């Protein structure tokens, strides 16, 4: 495009095209559907259970972060991001719980009863004492947890066998990437240079043991 074209209102793509793009891009927002029945293998079952545990941990951490009042305070924009992440991680955790119930996934995991009407005891996680006391400490923990989560989600995307599970997990992974970018941007880190390596669920679980993460879904 030449510079002279900028001054011509008749030239190039019209305002109508611009609006069409926006309208279409916003259409049909749907989470990819999961398989109708649990025809997938044990490996994929473990993937789903592991990510549910991961989302339980994230929802717990970010809820505490959103409710905390650090000594040095957070800006409104930062508080909004922590609130958003807490809400969306909780939504993702609920999605995984529903998937587990849909497929009757219980027998593989000693933490679950085969009676799906019985609720599971909510896991209790542990965070270092200073985690929620200062902005810097809270961002550092948040980024560590979120980076691990992104790596784990990517790891499941490339390891899951069922195509529909791949799509569904990738759908949630995209939002995890958005969260990570926002946290890094707000904390002053460069969010574009960091390459997030896909990791195995076991490696991710090992990184999170300090928070009393339950890795039994992988046993």
């Amino acid at each position, binding site marked *: 495009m030449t510079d002279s074209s900028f001054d011509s209102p008749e030239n190039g*793509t019209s305002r109508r095209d611009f609006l069409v793009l926006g309208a279409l891009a916003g259409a049909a927002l749907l989470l990819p559907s999961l398989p109708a029945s649990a025809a997938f293998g044990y490996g994929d079952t473990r993937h789903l259970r592991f990510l549910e545990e991961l989302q339980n941990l994230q929802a717990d951490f970010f809820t505490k972060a959103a409710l905390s009042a650090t000594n040095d305070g957070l800006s409104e924009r930062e508080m909004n991001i922590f609130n958003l992440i807490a809400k969306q991680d909780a939504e993702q955790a609920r999605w995984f719980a529903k998937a587990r119930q849909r497929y009757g996934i219980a027998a593989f995991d000693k933490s679950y009863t085969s009676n799906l009407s019985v609720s599971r005891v909510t896991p209790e996680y542990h965070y270092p004492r200073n985690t929620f006391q200062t902005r810097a400490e809270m961002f550092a923990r948040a980024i560590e947890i979120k980076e691990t989560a992104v790596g784990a989600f*990517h790891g499941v995307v*490339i390891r899951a066998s069922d195509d529909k599970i791949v799509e569904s997990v*990738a759908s949630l992974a995209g939002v995890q990437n958005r969260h990570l970018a926002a946290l890094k941007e707000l904390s002053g880190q460069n969010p*574009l240079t960091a390459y997030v390596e896909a990791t195995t669920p076991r490696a991710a679980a090992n990184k999170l043991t300090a928070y009393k993460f339950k890795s039994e879904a992988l046993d």
Partner: protein
Amino acid sequence: MEKFESLSRRETLVKGALALGAVAALPTLSLAQNEAAPAAAPAPTPLAASDLEIVRFALTLERLEAAFYAQVLGAHGTRAYLSGRHLTLAQEIGAAENAHVAALEAVLRNAGAEVPAAQEFSFPNNVFVSPVAFSWFAYTLEEIGVRAYLGAVGKIRSQAVKEAAASIYGAEARHVALLRLNSGNMTAPHYFESPLSAEQVQSLIAPYLK
């Protein structure tokens, strides 16, 4: 990384080339291009036809995005209409998109497939004069990229291409988040991304293909 132990050398090279592109930094561009150097490359082993189709389609999208940022930065050179984080994002994301283009072209060459000729694109005039229009168009374009990769990821057969596509997909999602965050919009409007089919993506980008 246990799943990759069985990957062929060619698959590993494909994965490496794409992953380098996903790192989104200019220095990796030359590395990604070097992956395609005939003297060092092993004999090409074709990817599945469906995977090649996906890579070619992804290349069109990445070229579209790269052209957008290049034209924006060209316009900014003339009229200095971007400032602060808008400008650095255009520079940094533009560099990332260039790296994605180089990496996808390298994948095609490594697979012994023809790299499509360069394409030309045109964009709405106001994205070259208004920071608000630039920002809105940029994150809408990136959003289409995210949803296009998501629509394709379950259909990819090559493990190496799948890993690399997942990596680029993550990078595109981070681009959207940054563009939205820095224009005062909600970083992630939903707790999930929503896929688009190739046909839907084609119809969305058609107005910008010359």
